[in-house]
């Protein structure tokens, strides 16, 4: 058994990596239960209903100006102002490839600012998932800047699946002159013949995207990310997480 210290936890919401802003994070997945007990039953019966999830973030308020690019305020405002929700990847054990991550599209449900004696100004952001979400694996670690075309570590999920998937890309830093980043997720049954499973729209700056794989599509056991980087002196930090549904 190996326990995990919380200093390894990382979280991307939208186009920001938030672990330097947050003091705690809680992600949860819930399933409604629908009672189907009838008069002739001697015990209650239930069937599974709809899935849902929540994401609760407590953080410290950064004094950087709202007009500063990629400031905490700007990134918070982007989350709060997006009615369709934003992609989130919660990596409590870090983003090293194959580590467990929670992959979701989240939308704000409440916001609180707090200031108390002998404490730092802080905020609480509550979010609800929209659409499918779930526990999956990290496919690419945003911890190291990539300046040239790169291939991620192969992740072996042991078996194929065909019940769909959600896959989030969060590009948290971007620099250079006209930088471009084309990310695809490839899959393979034999770790030799790889084919494109998911193709993200080309990124030219910080951004986030969510892609879904339809139920019925085969997703083979081996997964990896291939990132093609272009431009003059480009540099990107980005995370990719995929959850089989």
């Amino acid at each position, binding site marked *: 058994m190996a326990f995990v210290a919380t200093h390894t936890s990382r979280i991307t919401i939208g186009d920001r990596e938030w672990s330097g802003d947050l003091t705690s994070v809680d992600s949860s997945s819930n399933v409604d239960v629908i009672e189907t007990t009838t008069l002739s039953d001697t015990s209650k019966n239930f069937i599974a209903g709809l899935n849902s999830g929540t994401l609760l973030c407590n953080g410290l308020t950064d004094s950087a100006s709202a007009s500063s690019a990629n400031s905490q305020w700007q990134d918070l405002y982007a989350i709060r102002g997006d009615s369709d929700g934003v992609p989130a990847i919660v990596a409590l054990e870090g983003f090293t490839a194959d580590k467990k991550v929670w992959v979701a599209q989240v939308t704000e449900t409440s916001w609180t600012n707090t200031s108390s004696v002998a404490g730092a100004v802080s905020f609480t952001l509550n979010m609800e998932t929209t659409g499918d979400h779930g526990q999956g694996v990290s496919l690419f670690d945003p911890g190291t800047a990539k300046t040239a075309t790169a*291939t991620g570590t*192969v992740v072996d999920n042991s078996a*194929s699946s065909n019940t769909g998937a959600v896959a989030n890309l969060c590009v948290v830093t971007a620099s250079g002159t006209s930088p471009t980043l084309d990310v*695809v997720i*490839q*899959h*393979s*049954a*034999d770790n*030799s*013949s*790889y*084919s*494109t499973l998911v193709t993200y729209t080309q990124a030219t700056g910080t951004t986030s995207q969510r892609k879904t794989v339809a139920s019925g*599509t*085969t997703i*083979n056991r081996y997964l*990896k990310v291939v990132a093609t980087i272009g431009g003059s002196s480009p540099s990107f930090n980005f995370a990719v997480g995929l959850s089989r549904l």
Partner: protein
Amino acid sequence: MTKYKILVNSEIVDKNQKAIKKLKAGEIISDLTPAQIKGLTANEAIEAVGAKTKE
């Protein structure tokens, strides 16, 4: 020799994950090994073209 149409961009990699053959969607090729055919079929990435059909 059976020809195959590449349905999605694919690649054959060596043990170091270096691409040794890149296959573009729409391309028609005939020089796949049985193992590559098996792997790409599992990926739903190829289909045989010009195959004989029973009358």
